[in-house]
């Protein structure tokens, strides 16, 4: 089974890419593949996987490990379970430094304190000997960030970094991530199902659905005039965009691994689905300064005619 299919993405140095989609749309799996963290028995079959001029698919396991955690780092959704409960914060933080930077115990300790300061943890020295369960979720996520940026990575992947946190803490963590990104000019991939987070952070946005890219373009364009019906539906579900008292919702759920439709993956939930889109899966094609995977992009002047021509399915119920 293909959990993720036909995804191609490119990230320049210092760029912030937002990857959005509902739960189960393959955002995390894509990034885990990039990190080489796909759990057994999953496999990555990519044509190209190039980081900083090196093809990650051809280098050895050992070479690759030298990159992961150093040049490419990742932070995860659940800070409370992502840190090892049996080791102190200090140990887990200095471990990376000693491995990748070859620091001795003292140097690593000094650097760890600096890092904890940078991510805004008060009295960092005493925190070094604390265990993860003694700190709050927000604090643990700061530690995770400190661990990720410890070796000055060129690319940081943040997988739903704020989802598990309190609302008030979410904004702080996002601010921290953005500040660090600007200071260090590192590439940042922000995976989230939260359109609001993307709007605040990303320059470029990639919308994923059921393991495929649906739309990909600059954030400003995407928010101003979404081209894919799915993007439009996601945006309409934003509270600040809602008209009247009720939030717009998208009927249905993301198809699972085994019940993917034959045609366009979004067609069962799409308001504009036709006989054609039910049977023929659209290709990802260049469109309006980005890419789109749709037969009838919203900005296409001929789309009404095209839809009519292809026997629309929901005309009666859509209105």
């Amino acid at each position, binding site marked *: 089974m293909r959990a993720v299919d036909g995804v191609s993405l490119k990230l320049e140095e210092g760029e912030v890419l937002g990857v959005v989609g509902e739960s189960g749309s393959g955002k995390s799996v894509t990034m885990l593949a990039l990190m080489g963290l796909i759990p057994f028995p999953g496999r990555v079959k990519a044509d190209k996987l190039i980081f900083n001029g090196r093809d990650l698919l051809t280098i050895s396991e050992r070479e690759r490990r030298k990159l992961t955690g150093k040049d490419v780092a990742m932070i995860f959704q659940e800070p409370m379970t992502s840190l090892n409960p049996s080791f102190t914060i200090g140990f887990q933080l200095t471990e990376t430094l000693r491995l990748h930077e070859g620091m001795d115990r003292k140097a690593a300790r000094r650097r760890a304190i600096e890092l904890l300061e940078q991510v805004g943890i008060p009295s960092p020295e005493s925190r070094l000997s604390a265990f993860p369960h003694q700190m709050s979720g927000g604090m643990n996520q700061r530690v995770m960030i400190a661990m990720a940026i410890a070796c000055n990575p060129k690319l940081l992947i943040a997988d739903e970094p704020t989802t598990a946190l309190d*609302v008030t803490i979410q904004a702080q963590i996002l601010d921290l991530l953005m500040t660090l990104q600007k200071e260090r000019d590192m590439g940042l991939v922000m995976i989230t199902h*939260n359109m609001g987070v993307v709007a605040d952070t990303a320059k470029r946005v990639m919308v994923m659905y059921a393991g495929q890219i649906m739309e990909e373009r600059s954030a400003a364009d995407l928010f101003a005039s979404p081209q894919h019906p799915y993007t439009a539906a996601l945006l309409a*579900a934003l*509270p600040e965009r809602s008209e009247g008292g009720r939030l717009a*919702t998208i009927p249905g*759920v993301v198809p699972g691994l085994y019940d993917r439709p034959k045609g366009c993956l979004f067609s069962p939930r799409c308001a504009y689905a036709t006989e054609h889109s039910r049977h023929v899966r659209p290709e990802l094609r260049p469109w309006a300064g980005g890419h789109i995977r749709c037969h009838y992009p919203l900005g296409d002047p001929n789309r009404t005619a095209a839809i009519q021509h292809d026997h629309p399915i929901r005309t009666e119920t859509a209105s």
Partner: protein
Amino acid sequence: MTTETMEAPAVAAPTATPPHPLREFWGYFSANHGAVAGLVIIVAVVLVALLAPVIAPHDPNITNTALALKPPFWQEGGSIAYPLGTDPIGRDILSRLIHGARLSLLIGIAVVAISIVIGTVLGLVAGFFRGLTEIFIMRLMDIVLTLPSLLLAIVIVAVLGPGLMNAMLAVALVILPHYVRLARAAVITETSKDYVMAARVSGAGTTRLMFKEVLPNCTAPLIVQASLGISTAILDAAALGFLGLGAQPPSPEWGTMLADAREFVLRAWWVVTFPGLAILITVLAFNLLGDGLRDALDPKLKR
């Protein structure tokens, strides 16, 4: 924040009705080859035990010194009339093993039955009345659990006097805490659920509640524990028999047979080998069955 509320479409109703629970259980159970093997062995042992007088070639207690220590039939000096050889006083080992199956099964089932009945009642009482009653019962069970099980059984038998009945009582007491704990835990989780509340409100008495509403809901773990308990009971009773504290000679109990055979270990390997093999296979079968039952009955443990 965005909302991600997705209304489930009406068309996506479940396609098939869920299978009958028993059928579903069998599906999980039969996928576990070890468990099926265990079940087959147990059925075979039960059949052997039931038909013992018919299939045993000889009377298990007839002695014949002329035939003492005959080896199994495939060894020189053995004969097909005594397929697994004879013991030091000329009794047929196969016949004794076949009759011993009756004893071992009887021990396993009787011990677990006693334990389950007493244990469940104690557990239900502890779980329902809480307070001092609970503390008293559970503390007592903790103490029983702390002591090494065979040591406790030995001490009990030493006091009551050696014999099969006393050995069975001792083993029943030793495995009691498992059932008490299970029943109590089940009562405590079940009583916090709505249906028990509903039954209480509608005026059901405590006794009725205990046996009619709560007990049926903790049968699954009890069945699993019972299967594992039978294997413990057979093993411990055989150990007591081996030490001379369980069934007494000339009873063909497997552990007792081993105790008799011990001094001949240097001369006749077969008198030692077969009774122990019988114990091992039977105990292993009940353990396989118990593991399989647990996996099939407890979806929480499935991965």
